């Protein structure tokens, strides 16, 4: 009975485990491998050789032509829209989270519940009214059209996450600061904001990824390619490369590359960031 706690699973169980593990790995990676290989084939190649075969020779022409047809404009737009949105999200949600987590006032609890309930609202229901509103204001088909909706729709989750973080900050620090003569604004600026670093990072990553891949609002609120974000590149290029499968898959690879590169540099952060909205349950 002595070594039971340290027992390794039996050999049979181990092989079953590893079979399942590798099985799912194949399921996960095969589609991606397919994309990569096919994008590197010339169009002729795709007609001639079998689908699963590796490229006979590596053809970079698809990538070249995509990069030259305005890909960087889409990238630039994405960087601008997502960058500005995340910045605003962090500032606005930090302020709101501080008020809800720490300031005493009537309606604090109901307001918080209401904001958190906002997480459930399916965004598509706001699509048409926002479309009409954007047109009326005259922001239609500009990158700025996206900022408002992006920031607003990200607020419930971000406020929820940051409020949780801020609740963890010991009350004694606030009291010490009060005794030191700080009003609520100073306490926010010099104590809560610096100490919420990890929370802010989480919120930034979570929203950055979500907004980076956002499709429907960008699709509806912008129309000319010069103003569109990266996910729209795929859509727009569909027209141009309709039957050119390798080219389409090259577009797919290129548009997904930025996020994959970011992931390569910091998977822990990105995984934690993406899970942020749900881990608290």
């Amino acid at each position, binding site marked *: 009975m002595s070594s039971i706690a340290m027992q390794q699973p039996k050999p049979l169980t181990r092989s079953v485990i590893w079979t399942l593990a590798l099985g799912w790995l194949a399921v996960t990676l095969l589609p991606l491998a397919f994309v990569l290989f096919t994008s590197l084939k010339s169009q002729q190649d795709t007609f001639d050789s079998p689908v699963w075969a590796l490229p006979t020779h590596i053809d970079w022409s698809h990538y070249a032509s995509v990069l030259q047809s305005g890909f960087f404009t889409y990238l630039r737009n994405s960087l601008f829209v997502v960058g500005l949105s995340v910045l605003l999200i962090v500032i606005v949600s930090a302020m709101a989270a501080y008020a809800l987590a720490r300031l005493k006032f009537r309606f604090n609890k109901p307001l918080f519940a209401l904001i958190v309930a906002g997480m459930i609202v399916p965004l598509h229901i706001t699509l048409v009214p926002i479309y009409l509103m954007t047109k009326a204001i005259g922001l239609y088909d500009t990158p700025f059209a996206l900022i408002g909706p992006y920031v607003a729709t990200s607020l419930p989750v971000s406020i929820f996450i940051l409020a949780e973080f801020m609740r963890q900050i*010991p009350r*004694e*620090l606030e*009291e*010490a*600061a*009060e*005794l*030191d*003569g*700080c009003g609520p604004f*100073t306490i926010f600026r010099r*104590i809560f904001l*610096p*100490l919420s670093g990890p929370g802010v990072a989480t919120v930034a990553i979570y929203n950055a990824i979500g907004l980076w891949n956002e499709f429907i609002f960008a699709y509806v609120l912008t129309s000319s390619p010069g103003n569109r974000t990266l996910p729209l590149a795929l859509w727009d290029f569909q027209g141009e490369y309709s039957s050119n499968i390798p080219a389409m898959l090259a577009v797919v690879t290129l548009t997904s590359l930025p996020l994959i590169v970011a992931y390569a540099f910091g998977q822990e952060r990105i995984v934690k960031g993406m899970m942020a909205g749900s881990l608290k349950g």
Partner: protein
Amino acid sequence: MTQITLQSVHKTYGGAVPVIRNVDLDIGAGEFCVFLGPSGCGKSTLLRMVAGLEAISAGDLHIGGVRMNDVPPAHREVAMVFQNYALYPHMSLFENMAFGLRQARVDPKEIERRVQDAAKILQITHLLDRLPKALSGGQRQRVAIGRAIVRQPSVFLFDEPLSNLDAALRVHMRTEIARLHREFNRASAIYVTHDQTEAMALADKIVLLRAGQGMLEHGSVAQIGSPMDLYHRPRDLFVAGFLGSPRMNFLPATVQSAERGEITLQIDGNSGGERLRLAAGIVAPAAGSRVTLGIRPEHLAAGPSDGSAAITRRVRQVEHFGEYSYVYLDGTEGEEDLIAKVIGHSPARPGDNESFSIPSGDCHVFDAAGFALPRVQA
């Protein structure tokens, strides 16, 4: 000149739950006052009301002669040392101590001077650039104290500052705090603790607070006085039982007779109990009234009695601590064991019957309501 005055101070939560009732208190300049009491008695709440971190439901607070009920904490001339130190984790020790002064727009050169002075007194000059997380508990405690010192307050407030330290460190820091207070003896101090040893060691004046039903019936304050006052002249059973470890022995009894400075008590017991004649000089209670006799463990003298007041009980347990022993005796039926503290090694063994005499001068008699019967002589 009185530094701090509390008059008829009450505190209720949500307008319905009373926490503190009827506190009247004067603390003089330079006095070290300890708020002591069991958990739930509101001692921390009272401290925070003086600090301005909690609102005063009713009554008045004056500091330095000025009514402070509505004054924000930073303007009350107080400084507080928190239980968990409350050091800003993202600032260096220097910045931690300077923060309050910067908020008050004190001249930077003055800030530098004060922080360096405090650091020198507390022996943490070499740590000023570090962050709080790089420090031990004792060092953090010192920084917390330093932060209070640099503000040059009229009143130092301590909220159970030593409860997070290990035993040895606690004793050391206790003497440090006493030493520091002597150096700053124009400032008063209010110190909250549940540890009566700390209270006895540090206090010029102890405010012992009640909780629960006692608080609702008699008000929050059980007794105010110097440690020796409370120890030797407790006003009621609660005070008598709170100070002193092991606790005072209580023997329920009935008064047989009381004449000319001598009272005879019939101690409760299933086979009659003991009959004790005490020349206690206590104001005579009526014959037949119920009282409680209180005698501290260290006052029970072992060995054959020389007077007429002695009890003989069966020994249940003996504990030896080298320098002294505790002898546990059968208590009155249904009551706790009696404890006698014997100097040196007691020869008593469990099962033996041992006699202990009760010196009249050291006993306390409490009436049926629990209040001490006053002594005739001063």
